[in-house]
């Protein structure tokens, strides 16, 4: 059951790498939040009920519902639906993501043979998700896609933290602090001038400062 959930998590990243519709990105982020919620319930294994309630609230209410709804709202309000002119084509994007996953799995299964205390499935998918998130930030051009790439990377980090939750539960709770950055970005896109000047534009407009 846990393994299926993690595979689904990995599939969302492959889906993101081929699509150019921003709404699909949001759906993938919502799906990741829901999967993380299930994993917290199934696999967190804590004896502290307060911690469990906090994390399940965080994953379900914040990651799976609130953030995606807010993103949808920003996208519809600005009328931006597509990631135009990606720096790489969908095909090569998928090829690169697949390669990242293959290398991630290879390394984690190879490492699992030499070290103890490691769950290769968790490790492979979460490391690949983190790297793919970085790849999305690098290869896409809209600011809002950058923010979404950061969210996916952060979900990957959450998954990685969950894999050692039995030994160190506080690490998972700390990972939630990264959501503060996301809140700041979204507020920036929503309230601040960033919305007018940047949310629909390319990162090219962020290139005035240079040498």
């Amino acid at each position, binding site marked *: 059951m846990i393994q299926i959930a993690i595979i689904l998590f990995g599939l969302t990243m492959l889906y993101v790498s081929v699509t150019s519709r921003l709404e699909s990105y949001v759906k993938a982020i919502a799906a990741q939040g829901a999967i993380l919620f299930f994993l917290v319930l199934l696999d967190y294994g804590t004896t502290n009920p307060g911690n469990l309630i906090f994390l399940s609230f965080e994953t379900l209410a914040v990651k799976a519902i609130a953030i995606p709804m807010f993103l949808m709202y920003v996208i519809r309000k600005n009328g931006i639906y597509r990631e135009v002119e990606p720096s790489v084509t969908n095909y090569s994007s998928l090829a690169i993501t697949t390669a990242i996953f293959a290398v991630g799995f290879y390394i984690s299964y190879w490492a699992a043979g030499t070290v103890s205390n490691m769950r290769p499935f968790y490790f492979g998918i979460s490391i690949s998700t983190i790297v793919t998130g970085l790849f999305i930030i690098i290869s896409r051009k809209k600011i809002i896609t950058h923010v979404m790439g950061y969210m996916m990377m952060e979900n990957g980090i959450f998954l990685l933290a969950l894999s050692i939750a039995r*030994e*160190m539960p*506080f*690490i998972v709770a700390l990972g939630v602090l990264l959501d503060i950055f996301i809140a700041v970005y979204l507020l920036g896109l929503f309230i601040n*001038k960033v919305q007018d000047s940047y949310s629909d534009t390319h990162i090219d407009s*962020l290139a*005035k400062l240079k040498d």
Partner: protein
Amino acid sequence: MIETLLFLPVILAVLALVMRNRTLNIIMTSAYAAVFMAVAVALYRSHAAFTPYFRVDDLNILFLLVLAAVFCGVAVFNIDYLKKNEAPAKSHALFTANLLIFIASMTGVILSTHLALMWVFIEATTLSSSYLIYFSHSDASLEATWKYLFICSIGIAIAFVGMIILSMGLNHSDSLFFDDLYAGAKNISPFWLKLSFPIMLAGFGTKVGFAPMHAWLPDAHSESPSPVSALLSGTLLNAALMGIVRVNRLMTLAGMKWYAENLLLAIGFISIFVSAVYIISIKNYKRMLAYSSIENMGIIAICLGVGGAGMFAAMLHLAAHSITKAAFFLTSGNILHRFRSKNIDDVRGLLRSDPATGWLWMLCFAGIVGIPPFPIFLSEFLAAKSMIDTGMIAQLILFLLLLTINMAGIGKAVLRMSFGAAVEAAGEPRGGLFSYLPQWVFIALLLVMGVSLPGFVEELLHKAAAML
């Protein structure tokens, strides 16, 4: 005493946001700076602890004193800066509140005894300093702030990955207190430790400004108000370096000194190389100072990587760079105020039109490139000496070559700005006493350090170096 440093600014920040009074803002910042200095000196005399999570030891007292010195200077400069500034009362209050929280979170980074707690405070420094960078509310500052937040948040996320991976390697304990990590260093699985160090180096290194993760640094330093640039360069980079230094110690204790040293050398050389490439043809003098910060952080990384006498050199360089660069950035604020341009070509004849600024500009230049008797000469000399001791001749040649290029780049710009006929300045006339006093005090401090390193300073640096 530590609790004063951490809680007082929070109370003052709330007060600033509620009262929104300009004079009160200035008084509160200065008062906190004075208290900070007094407490830092008291902590130097008798090391103290506050809960298991905060403690003063021989290493972080050096960082704390440097922070105190730079903050005091900036607070004095700030009196003039905030008086002249015509921002609305709300921005004024937000600036003060964020400044206070920024200082408190850097104090938290420096004093924390727990890796995860230190990481939380580094995140807090990012959040609190972003408004300070955005303070002028221009498009350029918005761009700089966005880049700063985004790149640093990725760095912080990556540092977190490094922490998780380090936790995977802890076999017999689940504590991330530095004391426990150090005590159990031999038990940490080498595979995970080797994997986590470069990840944490990249993550924390993003905030230190090591190349190639430095993209935010020139933008943020050049677009923020000069007192904030001084704080970013003189204190924030050090605070982030604290994370690397603490983890580097873990590597040494775990018997992987060579591994960490090589990585630090590599990242240090890349940093001074990148800064040399940009600085030689730089057009904007505030960006020039920012690249110089990348260079100096690279030098510190190299000193840490060389080891031996390099450790002492690293600590001396850290202290000297912070104070010199703070003076440099504050002086650049005076020039910007007077000429309303950050372009090197627009500024001429500083020595004729405003001798005080001109001389400060020249002295800061001499300080930053390490012309004797300034202490950076001493630290770079020691770094070179320890390279010879360890037989790194090729690295030494490259090191000196890159330092010379950096020196030439900064020197060209500074001399062009200082000499020549005085040009008509577009901005306002020279500022009051407070716009000059901190820099002169900093220069005097540096000269004392460089000419005769006082016994207690030397002891402080040696004790800190012994804990690396």
